[in-house]
């Protein structure tokens, strides 16, 4: 997963393009570029939800 994230922890245009290709989607470059900011925001939201969920699980785990 880390290779998909830029040093600024952001989904790069290149990585987004590769993810689309991996899903069998051949999307015009201008559409990819237009969607990139929203995709980066979504990815950041997803990472935050994962972190929040891990924190809740740790809080719930009596062994931690």
């Amino acid at each position, binding site marked *: 997963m880390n290779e998909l994230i830029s040093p600024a922890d952001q989904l790069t245009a290149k990585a*987004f393009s590769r993810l*689309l290709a991996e899903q069998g*989607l051949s999307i015009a470059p201008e559409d990819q570029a*237009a969607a990139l900011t929203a995709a980066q925001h979504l990815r950041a*939201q997803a990472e*935050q939800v994962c972190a929040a969920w891990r924190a809740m699980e740790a809080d719930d785990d009596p062994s931690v």
Partner: protein
Amino acid sequence: MTHPCDLSIAEVGLALRRGALSAVELAQAHLDRIEHRNERLHAFIDLDPDDVLQQARAADVRLAAGDCDDLPLLGIPVALKDILDVAGRTTTCGSHAQAGHNATVDATVVQRIYESGVVFLGKVATYEFALTGPAFDQPNPPPRNPWNTGHITGGSSSGSAAAVAGGLVRCALGTDTGGSVRSPAAYCGIVGLKPTYERLSRQGVFPLSDSLDHVGPLAACVADAAYCFDAFSEPADAPPAAQWLGQGLAGLRLGYGRDWFAADAAVDPQAIVAIDAAVSQLSLLEARVETVELPDYDLFEAVGTIILQAEALAVHQTGLSTRPEHYGRAALRNLITGAALTPEHLSAARAMQQRLSADMDAILNRVDALITLTTLTPAPAFAAFTEGKPVWTPMRTFPFNLTGHPALTIPIGFSSGLPLGMQIIGKRNDEARICQIGHAFEQSTDHSVQKPVF
């Protein structure tokens, strides 16, 4: 004398039973209204007047035979968002990608509609695949807000809202995945009911996100919404939504979720004034209103967005991979963002959804209903959408798609001549309670009486 299209469902039902009005006369009145107003509103996109009048004639036969005791909606016109399958009609979903997709079987909720004796008036517009809009590269132009046609209706049940607010029909079914019944209803000054998850069948409704999609009525008043919900819903161990219409609110406990919007930089100050006044009115009606602390709104929105985008991309993966050029640009660009997600993201979001639902259940166990804003602003102008970039339209609807609780929006006033809405959220399968509260408020104010001028 009130125009037949402006009579409530209860009033027009009485007129039909007494023979003061025939179903054919009522249907023709609606067809005439559509003829005169739809060119401005762009609400109806599929209308077959001959079929409408044929259904109305059949309803008149049943009315004359007295075959109407358990059919309160017999002969009353209803419209459908064009993502619900009606056999023999194209389900366009507002997309060129659906060209030629003719439905062969009625959606289950459409079967319920026919069983209730309703006259299916026609199909109304939707944002493309119930996703995003307004857009100008769909098969039909985006509907216009009847209060100011320079402003959007909101969506995705855009045609449903424009049709009801414009007086073309008393009730139109829409779908709500993140607020697509409630936000256009609020923007257009009408009532919108997102029921408990799966109370209206999704079978035969084109999916956006299976775990979040809800079918619900947009209606001219709370009672109309309640009667339609009761006629079209799946059975449940719960009182009918219309059960407590007309009953007072004395002793009911209402939790006011003010912290979800009051400090938000995006909120219209007039919206705060309007909902504070509405809450005061509920207190005057002897409800016991207390401020409640709700779970982090941003977390709801993040979890909902992850699930929606992941599921929507799965629905459209084949279409996007084989004919992307058939999609509108805004819809395509929205859908492909889902590729940024991993299975781990979706798994965490689903787990969090369960946690948030349980948290909301716990809050709703302490009160009879929750109150908050529906949208934080009135409807934006079309001019804001001209650059083709997404425009942020802040609302507070998404949490209850995640949790599945029923939520009703009702008009509470205006800002710059455009309507604002209050959301009333109930316990699961407690549509009756939120309709009781909404109806009592509606009857004690004049917000729902005001109509746009044509």
